[in-house]
């Protein structure tokens, strides 16, 4: 009796959990997402009246996608201008003050089409799924992705200004 009760309970719990797919890992991008946009294609496709329709990032909250975005961020040399998010030649990406908007659709648009004064257009180069990964990563830098999907640190020099109240190399007291 007790055994039956327990086993039924275990089954119910297990199936409830199974329906909850916490982390998605799709190694092969969906065919619809490997498209590469020319600037024009993007313009005509998504911006009929000038205003951007609300687009949700398919990778929102996906830990694996954010991690991949982080890799791409340095591999595609975004760090060359934006450093690790703090900004250098390019504007900082850890910011609340987005020049071209910080919504996923804005960021997507910025990456695809480029922006004046140096931001190149990546639309013709890299496939859509990677752009979404980059968008997810950039938003994770600002805490706009769930904390549970955002890595707390990376295997390089500490960049968070909150963690250290001295300049490395400053003389000891």
């Amino acid at each position, binding site marked *: 009796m007790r055994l039956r009760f327990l086993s039924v309970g275990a089954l119910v719990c297990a199936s409830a959990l199974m329906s909850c797919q916490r982390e998605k890992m799709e190694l*092969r991008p969906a065919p619809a997402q490997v498209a590469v946009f020319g600037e024009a294609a993007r313009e005509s496709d998504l911006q009929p009246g000038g205003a951007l329709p609300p687009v949700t990032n398919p990778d929102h909250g996906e830990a694996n996608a954010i991690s991949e975005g982080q890799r791409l961020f340095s591999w595609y040399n975004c760090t060359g201008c934006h450093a690790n998010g703090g900004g250098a030649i390019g504007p900082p990406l850890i910011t609340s003050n987005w020049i071209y908007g910080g919504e996923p659709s804005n960021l997507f648009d910025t990456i695809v089409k480029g922006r004046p004064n140096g931001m190149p257009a990546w639309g013709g*180069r890299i*496939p859509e799924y990677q752009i979404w990964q980059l968008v997810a990563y950039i938003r994770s830098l600002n805490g706009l992705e769930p904390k549970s999907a955002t890595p707390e640190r990376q295997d390089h020099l500490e960049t968070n200004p909150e963690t250290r109240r001295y300049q490395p190399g400053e003389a000891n007291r």
Partner: protein
Amino acid sequence: MRARTAALALAAAGGCGTSNQSALDPAGAQSQGIAALWWFFLTLLGAIFVIVMVMTLLPLLRGPRNAGEPRLTRVVGGVSVVTLLLLFGLVIVSVITGRATAGNTPPGRHLAVEVTGNQWWWAVRYLNDDPSRIVVTANEIHVPVGTPVLIRGLSNDVIHSFWIPNLQGKRDLIPSRITTEWFEADKPGRYRGQCAEFCGLQHAHMALWVVAEPPEQFEAWMEHQLQPAAAPPDALTRRGGEVFLSHACVLCHAISGTAAAGQVGPDLTHLASRLTIAAGTLPNNKGNLAGWITDPQSIKPGNHMATVPLEPEDLQALLAYLETLR
């Protein structure tokens, strides 16, 4: 899959020797020493194992013995002392072999090769005091027979382990550290190696080949590798070169002599001269290359090569161009 098997078999047969990636088929002094040690251990410990088993099973065949406890104590004590001495001997033999086969730097003149582990491929640089004579390649190491080769191991991401069983034991490649080991190939041949430390999704497909050649042949290979990529000879391959430079390829790969200087993926300057693509995953031929470029994630799921859609004509041109990178 069958085609792939046949192709690799052919590739192996075309070389001077075949490799079954085995520690028991040594092709160098180091692996020979280790293999000898292995056979010694196996014989001795195997004999001991058989004796112990016979002693264990004997009481099943005959009734209980009425040995006096003092006698039993002497026997067990004696056997234990013999075990101690044997193990002591094994430690000595093992340490002597270790000294002979390992060591951090080879004696005398040697070839220094820097191997950097990446998820999931090997970057290879032949070090040279003259920067213009540094050869960069990937997933394939050519070495001259009879010259010690020093491997300088690095890693760009996680811990990998460099292992060519036919030549030497393994050495971990650890981020932030430099590890070294050296080996010397005695027989010309092609020896397969594989990452031996679990490094993530495609740990299984992180292989490399060591090609041991007679010194002259090696020198010729080296000279050829030092050349930049040849200019595309015809319209189709020229177009292929443009495809390469205008798509995502150029973001990650370098081809010396062109504007492509990406440092993220393997250097492709002499891609067509290599035995395999995708770190030993597929034999290097046009069909496999086409499949790999079109849909890398179905061949090696999880690898970091982007899936880039190409028009069929662009793909054909790109393949033709890559085929020229001999």
